[in-house]
């Protein structure tokens, strides 16, 4: 039984934490939020220089040949730092999609650029409030894509996008689009977390390139893997919110004692901790299932997603509450975590969607009538 990280993986975590601690401070996060600049290109470049963007690519692909567990570690540290970088859409979605469904040519053309930070490949699975493969109205005919995808996270900063659309037979597939190609219109949206510059992208007869291994099942697997990795990012941010709030509760005095000595406060913090650790346990299983290709991945992804969503929402809302009036101010830190939490919820769909995926998987029963 070994349901934890190896020493090598712990070293990766420590190195990353140091590096992100230097670049992606909460001050930087506040500045990004205020300026609306979003994408923190300096941190992304530093990650590229450190070789972290190619973490889960093989050496032939321009990476360092590690796997899903190491990628999970990266996601957790990104979450903890609140770095305004496209870890989830690029590293946890576009890269695995290219690896599992792309051609060798596609991998050779794009993976090295992603590893070096030159290519920012967004993943456009969402439209109409839903996610592919269940909600897809964009269409491809004769290698030309038409449709409207939104929100596309980091779509306003991306060079390329992987777009879910139906082919001429009505099958959901993934297509590679160069966002500088003709017929692409990008409109910036106003996301709850402005450090993740979301966009609406309209394609009008845009030339695209099919990922031949992609179909509805492949898109579902991609979402499952992304849900596991996002859970680590969520746990990272929830853990940081807890740490900040714990520290505040130890410093802040009222009625002649630190507020953290009152059980009303202490027990709330304990509940935050418990929910985060429960989510972490599910995320561990998800990482194991993802790394080992276990058939229980859909179930593992759903439970990791559900408990992570719960932990983040509880921890970030209560973080504001326990900070009192200061927690409600723009200048204070707690809302940064609340915003990122909602953003990560929006990007892969809400609990209702994942509950249905889980139950559909376990019960094999008809979907709930609406």
């Amino acid at each position, binding site marked *: *039984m*070994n*349901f*934890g*990280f190896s020493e090598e993986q712990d070293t990766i975590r420590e190195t990353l934490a140091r590096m992100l601690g230097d670049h992606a401070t909460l001050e930087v996060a506040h500045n990004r939020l205020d300026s609306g600049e979003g994408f923190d290109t300096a941190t992304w470049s530093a990650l590229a220089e450190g070789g972290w963007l190619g973490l889960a690519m093989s050496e032939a692909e321009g990476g360092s040949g590690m796997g899903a*567990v190491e990628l999970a570690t990266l996601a957790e540290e990104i979450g903890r730092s609140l770095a305004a970088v496209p870890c989830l859409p690029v590293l946890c979605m576009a890269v695995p999609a290219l690896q599992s469904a792309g051609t060798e040519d596609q991998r050779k053309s794009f993976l090295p650029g992603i590893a070096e930070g030159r290519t920012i490949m967004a993943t456009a699975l969402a439209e109409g409030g839903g996610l592919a493969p269940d909600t897809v109205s964009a269409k491809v005919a004769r290698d030309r894509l038409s449709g409207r995808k939104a929100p596309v996270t980091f779509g306003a900063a991306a060079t390329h996008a992987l777009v879910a659309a139906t082919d001429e037979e009505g099958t959901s597939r993934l297509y590679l689009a160069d966002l500088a190609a003709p017929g692409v219109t990008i409109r910036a949206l106003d996301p709850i977390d402005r450090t993740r510059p979301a966009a609406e992208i309209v394609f009008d007869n845009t030339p695209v390139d099919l990922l031949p291994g992609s179909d509805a099942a492949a898109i579902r697997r991609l979402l499952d893997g992304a849900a596991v990795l996002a859970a680590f990012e969520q746990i990272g941010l929830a853990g940081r919110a*807890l740490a900040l709030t*714990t520290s505040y*509760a*130890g410093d802040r005095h009222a009625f002649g*004692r*630190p507020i*953290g*000595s009152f*059980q009303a406060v*202490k*027990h709330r*913090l*304990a*509940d935050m*901790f*418990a929910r985060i*650790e*429960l*989510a*972490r*346990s*599910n995320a*561990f*299983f998800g*990482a*194991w299932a993802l*790394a080992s290709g276990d058939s229980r991945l859909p*179930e*593992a992804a*759903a*439970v990791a997603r*559900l*408990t992570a969503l719960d932990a983040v929402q509880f921890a970030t809302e209560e973080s504001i509450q326990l900070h009192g009036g200061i927690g409600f101010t723009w200048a204070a830190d707690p809302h940064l975590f609340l915003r990122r939490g909602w953003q990560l919820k929006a990007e892969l769909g809400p609990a*209702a969607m*994942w*509950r*249905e995926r*889980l*139950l559909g998987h*376990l*019960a094999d*029963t*008809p979907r*709930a*009538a*609406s």
Partner: protein
Amino acid sequence: MDFSDSPEEAAFRAKAREWLEANATLRDGSEKAQDHFMARDADEVARARDWQARKAEAGWAGLTWPRAFGGRDATPIGQVIWNQEEGRYAVPPNVFLIGIGLVGPTVMVHGTEDQKKAVLPRALTGEDIWCQLFSEPAAGSDLAGIRTRARRDGDDWVISGQKVWTSGAHYSSHGILLARTDPEVPKHKGMTMFLVEMSDPAIQTRPIRQISGGASFNEVFIDDLRLPDSARLDGESEGWKVALTTLMNERFSISVGRASGGARAEELIALAARVQRNGRPAIEDGAVRARIADFVARQRGLEFTSYRVMTSLSRGEAPGEEGSIGKLLLGRLRQEMGAFGMELAGTAAGVSAADDDDAARWRNEYLTAPGNRIAGGSDEIQRTIIGERILGLPPDIRVDKTVPFSKL
């Protein structure tokens, strides 16, 4: 990350399995429901004693005890593996958990050579069954508030008081008893630990019926119990230190123990497929599906949390932060699932016909769960422990720490 056994663990598992196959019968689902640790009647006690004696003879009792005391010197993960394997077989409840898991290790640390000789071998073979005489009507979560009084009388001690929530006291032969010997010092300082024989006429045991209908724990009345000084475990006024050893071993025993056997969330899926809600099968109702999905997610989280605990044990580390949350979250989940199982029955909620297994099962879950939230450290105590020991928050302000017990 890897779920497989290490080569040593696999070898240990194979040996355990081999012996169990030759000596026990695999469960086939037809067994009567039973508790893992509590016997319900004299017959279960007798069967438990017999099973323990056979395990002891073959070297499978007191696995983590040192060989010098008749144990196997196994690692904690060895105990986990044994519990997993033994759990596949129809074996009687382990009424020896307190003797082997709590009292034995405490006596090894704090006992005299004579006490070790008297206690350890008989605990191992199941000849003696031990109970833990700690909690009192006025001292539960605040254990150091006990009032049972032990007074010197010549060379003897005379003890009077009342204990409560004593699991298995009604069939135990011995008890480990915490008493106050000096009320003129602050509460943690004036206690002493004793080893007592439950058959002494000065000890009266009365079972307490729980809301679930069962009666696995007791009130214990002690009226002028006379003990020689040799019944004292470790020094006079050292009782709190001894109690902490016992409680530490209790946490360990629970963390490597078998799961408490509550219902699986998947059982609610099957139930929801059988019953109707709003004119259609309940499993087609979105609200029902959402609740069940959340239960599954939480229950999986607890299961994988126990894997994290096992990983710590397997690496030879003490269970870390993860170990503390299972206790806090399990009882509440079980209570909510029990309530939901009853609700699925609709107007029949809470009503059970003799042939209605569903209603009886979920009612029992619901009425058993509150015990999970109270026994072994209530939810509230767990939250304080997490807040102070893990998160490092400032302690509650204590008005009783420096005041002599008699002035409280």
